[in-house]
């Protein structure tokens, strides 16, 4: 009987330790994600500074350069909202409207396939990742938010 009690206590303690360890691990992952997001945000701002003046003569020819300038501003706002864990649905809607207008003006395919929008977002994403320390990673969510609008 005494032996059984001791065994039960050992099992309980082991379970508690495993549970604590698991929680600690989850916490680590969570912290890592938050930390990475902050790093990505800092790198994004640096990338944005480099590419915010990106211009296309082709857009000028299609009278869509002002739409593209608006796009860059709203896209920047959306990313800031996202990185700060704030609602970005309003920006998302405005961006979708702008993308549609740019697609119509340029007579190009829709969404991110639009050469100009794709080029801009690719450059920003490439620059953001390039300057991240190699031990860090960028989450799929972050990548989606960079290229999906």
């Amino acid at each position: 009987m005494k032996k059984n009690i001791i065994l039960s206590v050992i099992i309980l303690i082991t379970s508690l330790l495993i549970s604590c360890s698991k929680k600690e691990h989850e916490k680590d992952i969570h912290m890592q994600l938050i930390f990475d997001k902050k790093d990505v945000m800092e790198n994004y701002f640096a990338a944005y500074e480099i590419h915010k003046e990106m211009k296309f003569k082709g857009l000028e020819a299609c009278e869509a350069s002002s739409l593209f300038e608006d796009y860059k501003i709203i896209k920047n706002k959306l990313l800031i909202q996202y990185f700060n864990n704030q609602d970005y649905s309003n920006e998302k809607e405005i961006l979708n409207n702008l993308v549609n207008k740019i697609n119509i003006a340029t007579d190009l395919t829709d969404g991110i396939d639009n050469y100009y929008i794709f080029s801009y977002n690719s450059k920003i994403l490439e620059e953001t990742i390039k300057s991240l320390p190699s031990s860090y990673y960028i989450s799929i969510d972050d990548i989606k938010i960079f290229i999906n609008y």
Partner: protein
Amino acid sequence: MFTDPDGRAPRNMTEPQRNLYKASVQSQHPANIPNKYDCADTVIHIYNSAMKAATGQDNSYENISKNGQKLTNLQDIQAGDMFGTSNAKNKIVNYYQNDGTQSYDSSKADRSFNSPNIEIGTVGIYKPATAEDAKYFSGHSITVTGVTRDKNGNVTAINYIEGHMNNHDQEEHTFTINGTGDSSLYNKYSDCKFVGWGEIEL
């Protein structure tokens, strides 16, 4: 004929005329240029005004030939007429070459930011980056309105005026050594490539 002692920007003028030419270019302001002028029209407008200031000659743009015909309208010119085989035929922009000479061949033109050839009145020409881009526009052109050099003669900044298509206002910007976007000589437009520096000498 006067040729700059340092070899820059000979415009087949006397020295006083040349100084008047440069003073005219330097005094240009985007707000005073009709916004119906696109980039090439703006380059020719600035040239036209500078020639008037330097020599008193009106309508110098009529000296320009395009496809064997003299221009009768300042706006009948595009950036695409000022590089490649078109320029070799039309002889509009006399490009500085890498070996220090000048010719109408744009293929080996001086493209450097830190160029001893750049000065007020020099023009910079861009071409579409790809054949696909060329479907939408023929190129781009700018006029240098100021150059800053350090004590060693190295270029530190280049001011320029440019016109745009579709009645957009003219703009004045500055290229810097490590500039991006508007301030980058090589990435001014993401779908353009810089062809080089030259002069309109007609």
